[in-house]
């Protein structure tokens, strides 16, 4: 009895380890090219439950499948499009996979132009030139080809020297022209008797293209009290101001990097 039990166990294990080999289903209505909304594809699949996938260059898409009289019918989800080009229908059962090459094509697609600019931020101190790359892309990320089958167009443009943010329809595609370096530092002063300070103003500070220089630019006021003093201020809307306690008369000038203003005398 023990021996019989052992045989039964061994045979059961052996049988469970054996796998059935599946026959490749035959595609009954083959087509080399498919649109995403294709009609049902039919395969002779017997009575087995096959799983169907559409594998494009980006991702696998599970297809809806149904059976009738041993015929497997598959169709894609109703909505959406896909990356066009080479793809495969894959039928899977257990560890067996069968592939059927197809070419995918969307039914409809609306292409919109995309422009890449480099650099996005331009500083006139170095160059006002910008390189452009233009191409068209649809909502499913297919690139449209041009008249000569080119995928994109390259161009170079020279931008206006007017500083600012240049808006486009897409905020991400905005580009920027910065103001350049200051070319002249006009300085003036006034005695503020209520606070007993000299109020010194440097500005309007402009670049060679008549743009106001960038906010936050460091302007150092250098004056000789009993000691050589450097007061650091920062520009806002092209002006930098400083207040120096009016304890005596000073000679003062302003400096931005290596650019120096004329010297003025502060007197009460």
């Amino acid at each position: 009895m023990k021996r019989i039990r052992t045989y039964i166990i061994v045979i059961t294990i052996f049988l469970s380890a054996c796998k059935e080999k599946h026959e490749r289903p035959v595609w009954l209505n083959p087509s080399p090219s498919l649109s995403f909304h294709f009609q049902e594809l039919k395969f002779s699949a017997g009575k087995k439950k096959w799983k169907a996938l559409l594998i494009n260059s980006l991702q696998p898409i599970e297809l809806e499948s149904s059976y009738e009289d041993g015929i497997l019918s598959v169709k894609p989800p109703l909505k959406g499009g896909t990356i066009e080009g080479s793809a495969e229908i894959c039928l899977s059962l257990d560890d067996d996979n069968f592939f059927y090459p197809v070419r995918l094509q969307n039914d409809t697609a609306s292409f919109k132009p995309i422009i890449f600019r480099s650099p996005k931020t331009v500083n006139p101190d170095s160059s006002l030139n910008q390189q452009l790359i233009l191409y068209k892309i649809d909502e499913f990320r297919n690139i449209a080809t041009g008249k000569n089958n080119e995928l994109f167009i390259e161009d170079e443009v020279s931008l206006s020297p007017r500083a600012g943010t240049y808006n486009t329809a897409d905020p991400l595609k905005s580009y920027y022209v910065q103001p350049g370096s200051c070319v002249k530092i006009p300085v003036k002063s006034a005695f503020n008797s209520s606070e007993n300070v000299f109020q010194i103003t440097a500005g309007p500070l402009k670049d060679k293209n008549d743009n106001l220089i960038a906010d936050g630019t460091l302007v150092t006021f250098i004056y000789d009290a009993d000691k050589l003093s450097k007061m650091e201020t920062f520009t806002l809307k092209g002006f930098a101001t400083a207040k120096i306690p009016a304890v005596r008369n000073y000679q003062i000038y302003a400096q931005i990097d290596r650019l120096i203003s004329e010297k003025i005398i502060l007197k009460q």
Partner: protein
Amino acid sequence: MDNINKAGLWNDYLGKKLLLVALSLVLLTHGVIIYFTLPKTYDAYVHMFFADHYNRFWFEPWEYRWYTGFLTISYPPLVHQMVALIAKIFPLKVAFCIYAIFIYEILVIGIYRFTKMFFDKNTAGIAAILGVLLSSIVETLHVYGQLPTLNGLAFLLNALPFLYQYFLKGKGIHLVMALVFLAVTVSSHHVTAIFGMVFFIAPTIFMAFVDGLPQDKKTVNFFKFLFTIVKVAFNKYKQIILFVLLIVILMVGLIFPYWYWSKTDPITQVSIPHGSRDNFLKNFSSGLIFYIVPLTLIFALLPAVCFGITNKKRYMAWSISFFLCLLLGSGGTTPLPKMILGANAFNILTLDRFGFWASIIAIPFMARFIHSFIAGDIKQFWIRKFSTSFHFILSAISGFSYLLFIVFIFHLASFRPLQPKEIEIEPMLNFLNRDSHMRWRYLTLGFGDQMAWLSANSLAATVDGNYHSARRLPELTTRPVERLENAKFSGTAGLASLNDFLTDAEKYNLKYVFSNDRYYDPLLYYSGWSRTIRLENGIMVWEKGNISTIKPISARAISPLLTRMWGILPVGSFCIAILLTLIYLSRYKEPDFFEAYRDAEINYPKFAIYTSSFLPVIFFSLFISFQIYELLLVKQQSNPKDTVLNFYNNLDFQRFEKAYRFYKPDPTYTLDQYLLEKSVNDGGLLPSYAKLDSIEVKQISLKGDSARLAVYTRWKTSLGYREKNELLDLVKTGKTWYIFPPEFTPEIPEEQMRSYTYTLFKKAGKRVISSFPTVKDDKVKKPFAAFKQVNLVNNGKINFITGEVLNADDVPINLAMKAVVIYTDKSKKEFYPKTVFQYNLSPKASTYFQIDMDGNKQKIVSVALFLETDVSERGYIHGGTPGFNTENLGGGNLMLKTKIYDELTTDLNIPGVLIAEKDKFGRIWQTRLELFTTAIRSGLNREFTHPFKTIQHRAKMISNLDISTYINGTQRKIMPLAKDDLANQNHGISMIPHCFLSQEIYLQ
């Protein structure tokens, strides 16, 4: 009949009932309190971090979250794996508590069984209760959080009776049981296993040999007795060899990956100082924590323990173990422990564990004495001598004073905080989880062991860690530094280590610092870190720009077989131990086996009875009285010197109200006035960002009730040491000395209202809501910068690079700079500007810099300077208007008189200037950062005088070596040199402000 039943109820199985009482007490005391003492322990969070590792990655020994990665096979895993298993159901902290209490119960059973080898069950029951309340064990769990030590010990003590029986009777089942329990010990704490062989297993075997002798052989003289024992050992050589062989196989096999690791990657780090190695006579606080507190009861009962343990020949080996452990536990108080262990082991081991083992060995003998004191001969002695009442009162006072002492130990970590206050970690977890912050490493400062708790709850990585043996980063292993997060407690070496990481942050992809201690603020700021955000829990987040994300590091490969072994064998050993125990109890246990070998009552001599009966009362009463005295009654102002010392002690710990009480009481000088004056005068580097390092008080005069004292203080700041000299006048009123308040001369700004125009920036950051780390259109361009000049200077044996950098862009920028130097032997080294550099610049601002290169005997072949820029929103105001003039003192010595005017609407907390020494062509020869210790309030001036040594006359500029300069990866030319007329008028000195503003709401 009723009386008989009542007596039987108590007397039957008394030992086991006491054991049950002990086990219940564990739940009632430790079980209730452990969850609350846990966060204040030294090590509990470290073990929880390891447990979290196994919870997440059971079979993966590589832990990437600490030290840029380390192997967890560097610590026996059983405790961590068991906690990890429980954590599958309960939260990690609760899981740790559950397992700790479970182990404590096993330990109490172990103590009971261990004591049964010596004495009767009743004594064993008392020993079990003693185990619940023994200060050394309480301290190990509630102060150190050392669960693996307790786990190892619990199973070791349970193994000993089996081993004893094996060597006495030679039955295989006892050997099997001993080995399975020892296997658990090995799997949980290797040090306990190794030293347990010497201090516990050897004496057990010795005792078994003695007990196996016929009575006549036990009574021979000492040498004959020893000879007999050696003969017995030879006769039982098979048993010994079998045991040794099997235990070695277990020790090696069970945690083989650990031995493999320690062999292939040996610990080569500088020894980290530990209080247990101190001379306890010189450093009393270390002695208190590591020797007195854990061993107080042992010392109180020392006469009885000494008599008991040396009373019988069968205890001979135990007495050697006990005294040796007691001696080794005394640390560096005598040179003997170092001589016995050797310098290497002495400097690696924490010696408090030896004292701990001494206390465990002493338990049976203490229990014996207590048993006799409560219900035996000693009780009768006191009743005969005095009365029952006397004995009752003596017992009550001893018991209560000891219980009060134990309550104190339970809360020791609260009275003497070992850790910072508990920090809520949720805000930090949220910060690390958002905006891909986890792609960089972080560092915590001032967190204590809670850094391990943060790590356990996050997948983010830190450069720091809390397991010293596993770290391999040279910046950590070459210095005696415990952790980076508490660098200020490791003196100069600690701060040097921290400085290395903060300046060389790119090397470790270290981008964020969570700071819980403003002590580090100056170092962070002057090393180029910017404050980003203060989290809801008060933690300040500092950030460094231009840091690359973590690069994939390949884990150290370990054979899959070893990783499987590591994951299965330790827990397997635990399961087998539990299973075999059940089988043993049901099939093999021999009741009352030990009865035949136990000792009867010990006849203590009078000296032992007197001393051991009174010493506990004296010890614990004195201890409690001392604590009360320290809290309430200590005279802090009994003489001028103590008054000053205690005053500074209060100042150092920011106990300002207490400090105020040292001032002479005066109705015009109220606490409010004191705090107001303090807020106006303080706030600078000293004392706001400093810790008192040393103090010397010298009495200049003492006339009657008045005294004048000179006080020299040395303060430790994150930017180095600062010294201060002060004169204090004191007066005696009654029996108390008081300090005269310092004269206060208010500086008052003229304006009632000040204004200043700040230009703030806001970087839009990620505009596309996407979890992708980069979207091309959201990338902000790298800002433009330029080198205005770069010079290589040789001054004696030191080479350094000096220069000036310009922000040529229209936005404020962060800068990161490094010099790569190649020497003739083709070796390459990287150097950073450290604190002599402004790391943030506003548009069109420039900064001087200096990069020191450490001594290398090789000649320099080439130097490349790399500058990385990044858009910043803040950090570009360096504060204040410095004015200066120079006085030539001759010999290249200048005296600079610097006056800084604070025109901003916030204080300059640490006024400072970056000074460049230039020649007539405008070339920079050296750059220095000069910081001043006193803050400057808004609208005020402050003048500082400081010497400056020029080097032009002795240093030389190396011009035959081209320095390549790169900005954002592209090679760039250096701008033409320009003369500096202003510097030429001031002996070549030029300076720019470089101040630290503590208000973080804007710009820094």
